[in-house]
């Protein structure tokens, strides 16, 4: 059976709201509009406006209200979205236009960091903050620099937060349910270009008790020559790169990180100790990125197992350009991953195409 990521998120929200009356959804357009990306479709009708709460476009304010409600013991799921003037449920994902989390997380970042992540520590465990901040993250298509940015490394550097990055429908269901049930604040970074993608799901994944452990990576494809780590949309790219590499005799192991914080260092290092080569892939900026952290971890723990320098594939170190040709150059492409993997395996590689 197949399921889209959108339906996976929707069903996870539905099941958790049904299971626990303390769970409620709030954010821009989550109710009557049915969600700017239709993730919350049908929930208003089912649970009513008390539990599916439309907010004004005032992110700092409602992020704070969400955190305050969590202080009291409710379990808010705060959706970060903005407008999306052309989104229809049946449109192909590539024309989805606005990556809401980008715009809004920065407005709300004070409450996420200072009010949510630090309270349990500052209050010596008196005030836990069971809240989920979720929404689309990273680059979409042609939305310009202010709406194209990956926040994984930003939030991943903050103690007190958990940061999850689902790729498939299985990830989306299992991780969102885990995030809602978790007693700590979770930043849940989705990718709008994945919402419409379908993935096969097992009966186990469809069961309402299904839940994935936070902090565990998944080996999406086993291999023995080079390890490729990726998260969110880049997992799909890494898998496609692995297929191309296989044709050339390179067996790549693809790790879907699933969780940026806690980061599954054990899984990454175990894989690198097997393959002796590492390529990290992310859509975020290179400096102080997720790849930088993974590289540091491998250098610290598995230095003498490395047979080649670690390759980091990331966004270019520039704000996201609007022009289609520049935009393509600014974010990682499948061929970039293929080339990096070959470099790591000391195969000769052609120069990069200039879009």
């Amino acid at each position, binding site marked *: 059976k197949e399921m889209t990521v959108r339906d996976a998120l929707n069903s996870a929200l539905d099941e958790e709201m049904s299971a626990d009356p303390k769970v409620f959804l709030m954010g821009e357009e989550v109710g009557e509009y049915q969600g700017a990306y239709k993730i919350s479709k049908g929930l208003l009708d089912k649970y009513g406006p008390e539990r599916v709460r439309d907010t004004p476009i005032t992110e700092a*304010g409602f992020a704070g209200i969400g955190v305050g409600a969590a202080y009291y013991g409710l379990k808010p799921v705060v959706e970060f979205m903005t407008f999306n003037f052309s989104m229809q449920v049946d449109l192909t994902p590539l024309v989805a236009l606005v990556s809401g989390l980008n715009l809004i997380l920065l407005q709300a970042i004070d409450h996420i960091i200072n009010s949510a992540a630090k309270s349990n520590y500052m209050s010596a465990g008196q005030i836990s903050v069971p809240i989920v901040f979720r929404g689309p993250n990273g680059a979409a298509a042609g939305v310009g620099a202010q709406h194209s940015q990956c926040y994984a490394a930003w939030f991943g550097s903050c103690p007190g937060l958990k940061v999850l990055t689902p790729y498939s429908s299985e990830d989306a269901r299992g991780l969102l349910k885990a995030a809602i049930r978790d007693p700590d604040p979770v930043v849940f970074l989705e990718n709008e270009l994945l919402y419409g993608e379908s993935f096969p799901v097992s009966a186990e994944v469809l069961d309402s008790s299904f839940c994935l452990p936070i902090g565990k990576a998944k080996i999406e494809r086993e291999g023995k020559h080079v390890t490729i780590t990726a998260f969110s949309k880049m997992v799909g790219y890494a898998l496609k790169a692995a297929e191309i590499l296989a044709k050339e005799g390179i067996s790549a192991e693809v790790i879907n990180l699933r969780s940026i914080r806690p980061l599954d260092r054990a899984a990454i290092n175990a894989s690198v100790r097997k393959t002796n080569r590492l390529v990290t892939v992310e859509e975020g900026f290179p400096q102080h990125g997720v790849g930088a952290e993974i590289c540091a971890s491998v250098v610290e723990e598995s230095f003498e197992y490395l047979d080649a320098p670690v390759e980091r594939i990331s966004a270019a170190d520039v704000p996201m350009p609007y022009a289609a040709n520049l935009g393509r*150059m600014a974010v990682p492409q499948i061929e970039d991953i293929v080339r990096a993997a070959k470099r790591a395996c000391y195969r000769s590689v052609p120069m990069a195409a200039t879009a």
Partner: protein
Amino acid sequence: SDTATLTVETSVPFTGHICDPPSRAVETTPRELMAFFRDMATMRRMEIAADSLYKAKLIRGFCHLYDGQEAVAVGMEAAITKKDCIITAYRDHCLFLGRGGTLVEVFAEVMGRQAGCSKGKMANDQNDATVTEVAVIGATSAVIVTSGGSMHLYKKDSRFYGGHGIVGAQVPLGCGLAFAQKYSKEEHVTFALYGDGAANQGQLFEALNMAALWDLPAILVCENNHYGMGTAEWRATKCLAYYKRGDYVPGVKVDGMDALAVKQACKFAKEHALKNGPIILEMDTYRYHGHSMSDPGSTYRTRDEITGVRQERDPIERIRKLVLSHELATEKELKVFKLDFSFKDIEKEIRKKVDEAIAKAKESPMPDPSELFTNVYVEGYRVELMEQEAERKENLRLEQIGKKSELYSLEVDSGKISNPPPQEIGRRVLNINADL
């Protein structure tokens, strides 16, 4: 008797904004007036002691004192119960006491100590919610030391949600508490306190808008002490009528130096909020100390101004006069507190309690180093994974250090180690641009 009703008129009338303000005639009792006196005198003494501890370098970092503003804390507590929530900014010591926190807890926290054991009864055994429970502070109690310091005191069991250092952030958080109270269909309210400086913060208006849209039982209390740090209110705020600045939200201006006026206003506000949603209370108050310990408090205001407020509006002196004029300070009323001494002796007794609390807090050791990593996440809930991870990493590292140093010494001996050429170092930082 000590619970007989007395009616006292506030010296300043309330001013309402799109609401009829409450009556100036406030009902009180001898018992309550005595509690006000005792509580405020304790708060004052605590803050003055904190000042000394700071100067003795026993308190680090930030420390913001509340002396002058005590009437807001005690008046508010007299109108509400411990089921109602309070959230405030960094000037939080006295609000914590008002919620039933103890002197030892405050001193241990501001000195960063891990205070000790539980002896005797908790401070808030008294169930009479109309009398502030600080009446018996000084009783020793269990001490929970947090990791917050002066600005971050919490007491969740009596719904005190901190202690926040980011100016204005506590107002949306407070509206969130009110949201949860309404969501849970409880007849309780939240008081979110902020200063005249924070009153200009954008997120305050965002939260107020939503509180009004959703009829949340939120009471925004602007403690107007007339200076945001060293900036006089008129230099920072175009419209100085803070109680009117909710526009569509009703407001009341209150003499914040009069505990009875504060009580009356908070009672009024609670009823209003449960029925109609948010309301703003502007408490006209004053802080005697500077903004924080680094501010002598005298460069942006005159000594005469401070002295004038002390002489004419001091909240403790106001209650002292009331008690004396109503001849409440008789043996009979004093018996309520089971204290067999005069007014002068109450203050002396308070001084003793404060000193004892400081001594007890000083005895308490610094937190155990193991505390560094506790409570970053909720314990015993998937977080084990992170702890195991830390342990695993540490073991690996130790193993590696062993291995590496072995390797290194071998190779150095055989002259094989040399620094890589500079271009090799640069090669490590690769991204797609490197090839373009």
